[in-house]
Structure formats: C-alpha cells, structure tokens
C-alpha cells in the first residue's frame, strides 16, 4: 500500500465517507478533505424533508470536529480547488499547491439554471444555506411555484403544502419523476400531490419567472411570491475537464472507479461509472452511490483490490406520508408490472432490474437482496410465485 498523501476534493457525504473508510481500512498516510462550503460535512437528503420542518441544522452534521481530529483527517472547508496539475500531482488552491499521491474527486453536482428570463428570481434547494433561506421564506403564508417535478421539487412541494402554503408545480415532462420511476409510480404520486392540494402542470415547461410568478409554455401564468427552481442538476466536472480527463455526463471512470489517470478516482454524483448489471455507463445522484463508491475506492487504495464495483443501487424519497423506495436500476424502456400491493417491478430482457415500493420496507429490502445475486431473478420465476418477492 502506498502511504503517499490522499487529497479528496469535495466534502459532501461521499468525500467524507472516503476519508473515514480510508482510516477504517488501515490507511496511515495524510488525508486532506477539501470542501467549498463552510462548516462540517453534512447530510443533504433531509434538506428537502425533515430540515424544512424542524430547522435543526445541527442534526445534519455527519460527524463532529473531534472525529476528524481523532482520525487525523485534515478538513479544509470554505476552500475552493481551482485546478489540478496532473504532471506534478498537485491540486491548486490560490497560491498554494498541495501534493497528492492519490486524488479522489467527489465534487458532486450543482443546480441546473436554465436560461429563462427572470430565472435569477427563483431560489435553489441544494445546500444548507439554500434550505435555510427557503425555510425562512415559509414563515408566512406563501403562494409557492415549483419548477420541476423531480424528487427535490416534489419533496419540497409536499412539505410546503402540508405547512398550509398554496403550491403549484410545473414539469416539462409529461409525468413526475420521469427519469427515475415507472409511469405507474409517477401516476401514484400525481394523485398524492393533487390530494395534498398541489396544482400540477405536466408537459408544460416554464418560459419565464416574473415578480408575479411563472409563465408556462401554453400561456398559463401561475401566481407566486416564492419560486423554487428544481429542474435537475449537472455534475461538477470542470476540474477534471480542465485537467484533460474524459468527461461524459460525469467524470468517466472504470469498474474500479478510477479515471484514465491511475492516481485519480471519482465518486458519487459526479462520476460516470459502468453499472455492473446493466453494463450501462451511468451517473447516480444518491447517498448510496456516494458512500458505496467511497468504500470501494478506499479498499482499492489500501488493499489494491480490483474487484469491479457492483453494489445494488438504492434510493428513497419521502413525500408527505409516502416513503418511495427504489432498489436496483431501471433503464428507459424497462417493462413495468404494477402489483396489487402498489409495488412496481421493472424488467429488462426478462430479468428483474428494479423494484419500486411505497411504505413497504419488507419488499424493498428483499428486492435489494435478490438484485445482489449474481443473476437477477427471471420474470418467469417471479411469476410462478405471483410476483411476491417476500415469498422467496
């Protein structure tokens, strides 16, 4: 094992986990974890869920400072890395250059800000600072317009509606969460949000943001005094790109999460990696990908393991009283089977690819285990037991 310095760029959940896992695997060299945001590394998922209600920022912190001290992890927050010098193996921070033997890029994503007139009036929900601004804005009755019907937009809409605000939501695609779930699950959540009183405008893109609200493609105008822009994210690949690393919807890595430069790995939201079961190059925006990537990279650095990364993806979204859970990874065009229980099984080439459930941890966990097998169950074998995963 090399004990040369490890530098981790990005102190989100993935970067943090990489630092922790390196120590747990027995790495004794210097570790520097660099984050652009101020403060200790924190969890993002609650920003659009519990935090909006509770405002308890201290509960978001992943670990207190004393853990970084005890593990001899140098945490540099509020620090932006401006460049990489691959030939010299250094990261550039202002006038300073920091040596690395191994570099881990955990730069995450940033919000997409489409070039709409007036878009600067819309708020984001990505950082703790964003969430604090939104939470403060919800202290009086608001007419809220949400741009984007993905997870963040819908989680925020559900919280705002439950707090009594008047909420409308516009999504350019014809259904909610279209990239991530089946049409059947989209429909279930459409019904949920309408029950909560949220006015949904689907297949209707936003054309402008004004002081009065937002305008939609079909001419509809939605009155709002608070506009949230939740139209997706783009990976932070600028450092990698400028350093000549391959970028294709994320920093391109191999099955061990290493870039073409053997000294540089990438993980989590910013990494485009070959997904073991589908063979597709994917980029996943999830805690699971960030932390499982981090652990795999730590093992590779410390023990030299070269096993291809093969963790089963999982994901969750809390919307009102519904916990949506997804195990596995469906690709566009995978078939769907809606069960009486409300679960949706996804199939590709006759094998289970993903399982979507709502408030059904049993089926979700069973799905995670089934999908972790070398070969996912065939549709026929599942049909024989009436698609009841928990019976297996």
């Amino acid at each position, binding site marked *: 094992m090399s004990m040369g310095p490890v530098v981790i760029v990005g102190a989100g959940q993935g970067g943090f986990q990489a630092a922790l896992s390196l120590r747990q695997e027995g790495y004794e060299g210097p570790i520097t974890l660099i984050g652009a945001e101020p403060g200790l590394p924190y969890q993002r*998922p609650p920003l659009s869920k519990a935090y909006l209600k509770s405002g308890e920022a*201290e509960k978001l912190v992943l670990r*207190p400072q004393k853990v970084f001290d005890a593990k001899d992890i140098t945490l540099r927050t509020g620090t932006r890395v401006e460049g990489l010098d691959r030939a010299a193996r250094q990261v550039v921070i202002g006038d300073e250059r920091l040596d690395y033997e191994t570099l881990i890029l955990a730069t995450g994503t940033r919000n997409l800000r489409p070039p709409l007139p007036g878009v600067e009036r819309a708020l984001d929900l990505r950082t703790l600072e964003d969430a604090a601004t939104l939470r403060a804005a919800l202290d009086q009755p608001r007419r809220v317009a949400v741009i984007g019907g993905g997870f963040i937009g819908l989680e925020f809409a559900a919280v705002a509606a439950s707090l009594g605000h008047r909420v409308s939501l516009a999504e350019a695609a014809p259904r909610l969460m279209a990239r991530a779930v089946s049409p059947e699950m989209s429909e279930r959540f459409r019904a949920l949000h309408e029950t909560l009183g949220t006015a949904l405008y689907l297949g209707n893109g936003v054309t402008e943001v004004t002081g009065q609200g937002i305008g939609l493609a079909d001419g509809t105008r939605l009155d709002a005094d608070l506009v949230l822009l939740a139209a997706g994210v783009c990976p932070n690949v600028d450092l990698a790109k400028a350093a000549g690393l391959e970028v294709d919807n994320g920093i391109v890595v191999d099955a061990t999460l290493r870039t073409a430069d053997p000294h540089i790995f990438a993980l989590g939201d910013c990494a485009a990696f070959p997904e073991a079961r589908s063979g597709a190059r994917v980029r996943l925006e999830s*805690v699971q990908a960030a932390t499982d990537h981090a652990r795999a990279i730590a093992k590779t650095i410390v023990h030299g393991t070269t096993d291809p990364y093969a963790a089963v993806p*999982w994901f969750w979204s809390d919307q009102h009283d519904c916990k949506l859970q997804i195990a596995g990874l469906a690709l566009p065009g995978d078939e769907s089977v809606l069960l009486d229980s409300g679960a949706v099984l996804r199939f590709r080439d006759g094998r289970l690819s993903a399982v979507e459930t709502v408030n059904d941890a*049993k089926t*979700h966990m069973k799905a995670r*285990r089934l999908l972790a097998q070398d070969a996912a169950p065939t549709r026929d074998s599942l049909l024989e037991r009436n698609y009841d995963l928990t019976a297996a």
Partner: protein
Amino acid sequence: MPKVTYIEHDGTETTLEAASGDSVMETAIAGGVDGIVAECGGSMMCATCHCYVDDAWIERTGTRSEGEDDMLESAVCEVKPTSRLSCQIAMTPELDGLVVHLPEEQV
C-alpha cells in the same frame, strides 16, 4: 440529561449525555462513537446503526418499530432478539443509564 453507554465490539466503553428526544443513534454520532455508521441519517433505509440493547434494559426500550424488522434483516452482523436500529430508540428520562452493545461491523 439521560445518559447512554455504548460498548463497542472491542470493549471500548463510551458514556454520553443525550439531549432529550434525540435517538441513541443521534447521540452516538454527535459523540463520535465509531461503531455506529448511520448511513441514511435515521431514515430507516439501512441497517448501519444496529445495536444490541443490554439485557437489563430490553423491557424499557420497548418493541421494534414498524419496518424495523425488515431493515434489520439486512444487518451485517447477527440479529438477536435484543437487536434494534439505534435510530429508532428515542432517549427519554426513563432510559437514563441505558447500555447498548455494538456489533463488530455495520457495513
């Protein structure tokens, strides 16, 4: 404030004061206890805050919450009758002095 003692697999003992209402998991994270991972932050999406409630306390910590059994099935270490997800045990004055044992691994 109620106290909780964590006994890690290697015998390391840590006693922490819990803010009332905080979970056994949240208290461990805030106190820097190594043997609790809590990957999902208490969202009941993982089983990485698995603990064994000390036999003397099992009556008082109550029963597993809905869905907790299902998550525990995926715990890396052996699940025993005393197994709980520590994110699901809220610290109350009645639990002052609670002792939990931590498994060898969480992931």
